[in-house]
């Protein structure tokens, strides 16, 4: 079992935050309030999730677990659209299909094909694995959607030139799709390439701290990394492809009304 952290230990962790806050203050970055708010939100959210997960694990009811997974998916989806600067009312369902589909597919693959827990719906596996994959999908989708639409918006002349040269919507958007996918995936390729040397990944560290053999922990880590990577790529691609009919009008012009902010 992992050693629990005392209140004093936790306070000493918070004390460490003084260093970055002092740096922000000295450099007058104007993000002290934002950082403190984010810290407070993280603390409250994690306390609530900790308590909630405790009951979910005790109950181990597939419907309750699925309900929690649904909440996670909806919140992640809202966050993706918000951060990508796209109107939630226009893209909510399409983005949800992309993110939920790829996350559930990859999580299902890892749980049903690789781990096969008893019972198969064991909340101790389902909730954290979906969470890990979803968290990464969130990052990749924010990057890919934002890069894709800002790319077309900033280079509208270039995009229209492709159309004028006879390109279909798919052909004219392909250069921006490529850029967007690369932007979303490159950080993960770099992380995978240095894993184990530069960083010890979260799942593996958690398992080792929890008492698992490092040889077992690495197998889980490799498995989850492949599932995360697959889900990220599929979600980023499908999300963009599903958004096209909403984002462009019937003459393939980019609708300016899809963005939350003005250019």
């Amino acid at each position, binding site marked *: 079992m992992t050693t629990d952290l005392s209140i004093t230990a936790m306070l000493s962790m918070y004390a460490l935050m003084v260093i970055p806050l002092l740096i922000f203050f000295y450099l007058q970055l104007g993000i002290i309030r934002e950082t403190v708010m984010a810290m407070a939100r993280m603390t409250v959210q994690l306390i609530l999730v900790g308590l909630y997960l405790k009951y979910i694990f005790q109950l181990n009811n597939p419907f309750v677990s699925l309900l929690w997974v649904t909440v996670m998916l909806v919140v992640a989806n809202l966050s993706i659209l918000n951060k990508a600067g796209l109107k939630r009312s226009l893209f909510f369902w399409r983005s949800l299909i992309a993110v939920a589909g790829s996350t559930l597919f990859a999580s299902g693959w890892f749980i049903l094909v690789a781990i096969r827990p008893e019972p198969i719906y064991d909340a101790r596996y389902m909730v954290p694995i979906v969470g890990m994959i979803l968290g990464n999908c969130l990052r990749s989708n924010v990057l890919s959607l934002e890069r894709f639409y800002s790319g077309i918006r900033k280079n509208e*002349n270039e995009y*229209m030139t492709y*159309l*004028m*040269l*006879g390109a*279909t919507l798919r052909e004219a958007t392909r250069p921006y799709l490529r850029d967007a996918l690369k932007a979303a995936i490159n950080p993960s390729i770099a992380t995978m390439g240095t894993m184990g040397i530069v960083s010890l990944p979260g799942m593996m560290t958690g398992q080792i701290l929890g008492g698992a053999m490092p040889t077992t922990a690495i197998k889980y880590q490799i498995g989850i990394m492949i599932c995360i990577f697959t889900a990220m790529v599929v979600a980023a691609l499908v999300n963009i492809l599903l958004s096209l009919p909403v984002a462009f*009008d019937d*003459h393939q012009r980019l609708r300016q009304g899809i963005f939350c902010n003005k250019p």
Partner: protein
Amino acid sequence: MITYKNISLQVHRQTLLENTSLQIGPGDKVVIRGASGSGKSSLLKCAVGALPMAGGSVRVDGTELSAKTASDIRSRIAFIGQEPVLGAESVRDALLLPFTFKAHHGMVPTEEKIFQHLKRLHLSMDILDKPCTRISGGEKQRIAILRALLLNKTIFIADEVTSALDPESRTAVMEELFQPGITLLSVSHDPEWINACERVVEISNHQLMEVER
């Protein structure tokens, strides 16, 4: 043939054209004149569905511009903007770009054909391997025109395409575009270009008015 019928155009809630018409026959050479911001470029753009119209219709060779026909109409027209975008790393890639699209598959021009056009537009052969970022505005304009010529298009919409050209290059471009088989709808402030056009249309009080010559 391009027909604008009872079109109305609004850009940023400002009315540019209101219920006005214009017909351009096959082989016509038409230049649009008007004050800055009067809607000259917007008129050109709406022929290829690059700008939505507030009313009216546009027909190209008898086909009405609509969601279903926009791609087909665009593939028939060569649209060359004031600041042409080449959309590729090298000049060669830019010239061959349209042939990577489904609409022009199997129509890749021969090197010889490219060389002939380069020569006619007073461009050297070595420009093909230059990055598009390293060529001048005038060269970009000629490469954009050359690309359209390689597509064997017969309808040209040209927005100030000689603005960055020296007199020699301008003459070369005009020799290519003012051929009898080409229908040309243009915007220009260049007196030589305007003189060469058979028809001058002025935008005045949101209307397209033919100027007597």
